[in-house]
Each structure stands twice: as structure tokens, then as C-alpha cells.
């Protein structure tokens, strides 16, 4: 009996439970859409961008692994491949963002754009046709990469690891460049343009770092839950969990580095059209959310992952990974939600901290559907790492 068959009952259970969570969550989201459609779209965007991040992070890490190798990638490779195969679901889940574009994106309002010189000049890029065509283009590239990587990975089982490896690398090397560019543009289109006057060139890097961190955290939790059971018990060594812990540590640092760089550059230049982003996020209660990112996202995860013992014990590492997943959501919450916190006093923005129940339900609901589809995809292929022969 193969490992995949032996693990099937566990993955079936995961799929069913996640799907139940997804269905209940979607029902709650439906109620939210009816009662407060503006808030629904804002919360939905956050949940969508989060799980999109895990799918895209899987694609990026898979290509990175094909280029640089390493035991960490051998261990989580099947998970990453299944993650890239969730992209078709993400297309369906993207539809509400398009339906809610009028609520989310100021630049879709013709009358606003007409009377706003900045938006008028940006309308060549920020218009609904361009937005849609670009989204189709990004997804086509991601589909293409994911299809080729999964096809060659399958070929590797019959033709041998080393025979197919050059093909995987020929896709991955240009694929990584395309990936970084498309993810950057995706972040600009879907998230940055909720505040269409504002711009930051390091924005894409912040998203890439965050997505990779979310993906590592998700894969650590997955490998922990899979290796609790025979025949996968002890399939992943303490050293590999240690490596995954180190990588989470590194990407937590990288996320903090790029996020802080954005602040430092904007702080140094001190241009009103740039500082507005931080002014909105450091007032009316939002400053505590930002501060909590520094304390509980960067510092706490930094300190926990410094400790060698914690990284070598899957039980502890997976708890830290769950915390990483939560803090990734808080970061997205802080990036997205204050944008809709309007209101001003004497020309100065006066946002008010506000968390809606939909902000919690949306990531859970979309996450339920995503994890169910992920488990469905994970079952379709073998779970063992590929033999190197």
C-alpha cells in the first residue's frame, strides 16, 4: 500500500472538515453581503488576498526549490505542488472582487476620476478593462508555470529524477522572474489601488515576503499533522523541521526588512502624497495594530525561532507556525482595512479603528474552501518525496 493510500482517510477527513467550515463560512458571508455589502467586499478582499498568497507562495517556493535544492524542499514539495494546483479555485474566488470593484476601488467611479487630476492621469492604467485583462494575464502565467511544473514532476516518477530535472529548471529560472513581476503587479492592482493616489515601489516585495512566510507556516503545520500518523511517522527529520524553522525565521526578517524600508524611505522623503498612508495607519487606534505587528509579528517570532530546541520539535514549531499564520492576517488587515477608514478633521485624516465580524469570517470561510481543495489535490499524487535515482 502506498503512502498516499495509507494517508487517504486522514486527508479525506481534513477535506470534509475544511469543506464544512468553508460552507458554513460562505453562508455567513452571504448574510454579510446582504446586510452590509460594502464591508463584505472589504473583508472578502483581505481573505482572498491571504489565501491567494499561500497558493502563489507555493508556486514561488516550488520554483525556488527546483533551482537551489535542499532537504526542506524535498519534504514539502508535494504540499507545494498541491498548493499550485489550487489556482483554478482561486479564479472562482476572485470573481467577487470583480463584482465588488465599484465598492473597493475609487478609480472605478467615472465622476471621481473626472474631477481628480491625479486619477485622470492614472486612468490609462487604472481602468476596469485593463484591470481585468491584466488579472487574466497574471493567471495565465501562473497556470502555465503550475501546469508545466506538475507535468514534469509526474514525468520524473517514470523517467527518473535526474532525467527530468533540467526541464524543471528551464521552467523555474525564467518562471521565478515572471513570478516576482506578476505578483508585484497583482499586489499593486488588487491591493495598492484601494488607495489609488498612493504608491510604493517596494510594495511587491512586501507581499512576496509575506506570501512565502505564510506558505512556510502552512507547510509546517501540514507536515506536522501528516507526520503524526503511520506510515509518515518520522518521514521528516528533526533537521528538516529545523531548516523549515530557519527559513520561517529568515522570511520573517525579510518581511520586517522590506516593510520597514518602506516606512524609512517615506519617512525620509516626507512627501504628503506618500506619508498619508502611514498617517491613516497610525491614528484612531490603528497605531496599536501597527505596534502589535512589530511586537508580535517581528519580535516575538524572531525570538521564538532563535531557540534551537523549538525548531527541532515539530509540536512546538507547528504552534509557532499557527501564530505566524495569524500574524500574517493581522498584517494584511493593517495594510487593507485602514484604507476604508475615511473621515477627516480640518483636512487631516481622522481614521477610526474598526474591526467587523466579516474580517474574521472571510479569511476562515475562504480558508476552509481552499484547504478542502488543497487536500483534494494532495490526495491525487503520491506523498513520498521523489526517489533521487
Amino acid at each position, binding site marked *: 500500500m502506498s503512502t498516499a493510500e495509507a494517508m487517504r482517510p486522514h486527508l479525506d477527513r481534513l477535506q470534509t472538515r475544511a469543506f464544512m467550515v468553508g460552507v458554513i463560512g460562505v453562508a455567513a458571508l452571504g448574510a454579510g453581503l446582504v446586510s452590509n455589502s460594502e464591508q463584505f467586499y472589504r473583508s472578502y478582499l483581505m481573505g482572498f488576498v491571504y489565501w491567494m498568497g499561500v497558493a502563489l507562495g507555493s508556486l514561488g517556493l516550488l520554483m525556488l526549490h527546483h533551482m537551489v535544492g535542499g532537504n526542506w524542499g524535498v519534504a514539502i514539495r508535494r504540499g507545494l505542488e498541491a498548493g499550485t494546483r489550487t489556482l483554478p479555485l482561486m479564479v472562482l474566488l476572485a470573481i467577487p472582487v470583480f463584482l465588488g470593484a465599484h465598492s473597493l476601488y475609487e478609480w472605478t467611479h467615472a465622476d471621481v476620476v473626472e474631477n481628480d487630476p491625479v486619477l485622470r492621469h492614472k486612468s490609462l492604467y487604472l481602468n476596469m478593462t485593463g484591470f481585468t485583462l491584466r488579472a487574466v494575464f497574471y493567471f495565465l502565467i501562473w497556470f502555465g508555470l503550475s501546469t508545466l511544473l506538475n507535468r514534469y514532476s509526474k514525468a520524473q516518477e517514470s523517467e527518473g529524477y535526474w532525467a527530468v530535472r533540467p526541464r524543471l529548471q528551464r521552467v523555474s529560472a525564467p518562471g521565478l522572474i515572471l513570478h516576482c513581476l506578476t505578483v508585484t503587479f497583482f499586489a499593486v492592482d488588487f491591493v495598492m489601488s484601494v488607495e489609488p493616489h498612493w504608491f510604493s515601489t517596494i510594495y511587491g516585495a512586501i507581499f512576496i515576503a509575506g506570501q512565502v512566510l505564510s506558505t512556510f507556516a502552512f507547510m509546517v503545520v501540514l507536515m506536522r499533522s501528516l507526520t503524526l500518523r503511520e506510515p509518515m511517522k518520522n518521514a521528516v527529520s528533526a*533537521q528538516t523541521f529545523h531548516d523549515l524553522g530557519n527559513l520561517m525565521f529568515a522570511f520573517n526578517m525579510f518581511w520586517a526588512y522590506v516593510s*520597514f524600508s518602506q*516606512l*524609512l524611505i517615506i*519617512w*525620509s522623503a*516626507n512627501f504628503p502624497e506618500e506619508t498619508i498612508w502611514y498617517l491613516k495607519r497610525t491614528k484612531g487606534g490603528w497605531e496599536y495594530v501597527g505596534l502589535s505587528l512589530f511586537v508580535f509579528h517581528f519580535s516575538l517570532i524572531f525570538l521564538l525561532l*532563535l531557540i*534551537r530546541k523549538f525548531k527541532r520539535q515539530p509540536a512546538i514549531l507547528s504552534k509557532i507556525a499557527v501564530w505566524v499564520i495569524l500574524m500574517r492576517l493581522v498584517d494584511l488587515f493593517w495594510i487593507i482595512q485602514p484604507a476604508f477608514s475615511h473621515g477627516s478633521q480640518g483636512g487631516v485624516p481622522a481614521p477610526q479603528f474598526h474591526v467587523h465580524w466579516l474580517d474574521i469570517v472571510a479569511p476562515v470561510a475562504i480558508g476552509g474552501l481552499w484547504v478542502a481543495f488543497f487536500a483534494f489535490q494532495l490526495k491525487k499524487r503520491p506523498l513520498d518525496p521523489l526517489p533521487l535515482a
Partner: protein
Amino acid sequence: MRKPLYGLIAEFAAPEQLVYAAGEAHSEGYRKMDAYSPLPIEELHHVMHIPDTKLPRFVLAAGLLGSIGGFGLLYWITVINYPHNVGGRPLNSWPQYIPITFETTVLLAGLTTLVTMIALCGLPMPYHPVFNVPRFRLASRDRFFLCIEAEDPRFDLQRTRQFLESLHPHEVTEVEI
């Protein structure tokens, strides 16, 4: 009169043999011993029950000192000693302190790692008895050595030699002080 002995050294051809031998020696009750290898072997740490190094504590302390010192230095200069309005920013313009704070943290932690590591290893050590064994120079090429020291309470020239011979080494040699 015989010269005093530092210990007995056994030479092995493969890292696995050394790991096995070190494990056996530990279960046999030997404590004053050391393994020598041309490459790092993770398992040796476990089979010989070597306590974790104290190095991280020194590095953490130095890193904290570096970050507090770096930030404090900038704060003292720009807020207390020479307060100067730069583009209307607050005197405590902390985002601009961070890169320097980071640099001083890494500088102090890095230098401390180097210096403390050398000190904890007991370096520089101009003389060590194991080099009296001519073949020991292979320890930096392709041979693996386990030396049980005479100071060990369980050390007995005959019995320890028999024990080491039983581990199938290439040869067992007496190490003179």
C-alpha cells in the same frame, strides 16, 4: 621509567565508525574523551552527550548591548546633545535610527561570536598531545580519531586498549604527553 600517558587514540576510516565508537565509549562509561574529524558530524554531539555551547548567551547579550548602545547613541546625539530640527520631524526621529541600531547589533554580536568562540575552544593552544601521534595529521584529511584520555576514572591501559580494539579501528596508539 615510562613517560606519562595522555590517553589512547583509535583511528577509523569512516565517520559512521567514529560515531559508533564514540557512542559505545559513552555507554561504557568513558567521559574524558574527544572525537576528531575532518568534517562536522552532527550525530557525535548526541552520542557523546556533549552539553550545548554557552556561546549563544554571550552573543545574545552582546547583540542586546549593541542595539541599546546604537539606539542610545543616536538618541543622545539628536535629542539631548545636539537637538536640531530636520525638516519638521520630531527630534526622536526613530525610523532613521534603526539602520544604525541594526548595524551596531550585528557588529557587536558578530565580533563577540568570533572572540568568544575562540576563547571557549581554549584557543590559541600552541601544544596538544594528540599531535605526538604521527598519523594524527590525517585527522584534517580523511581519517577519524577517538581519543580516550588517561584522566578518565575508568581508564586502564589494558582494558581501554582492549575495548578500543573491539571497535575495529585501523589502529590504536598510545598518546604521550
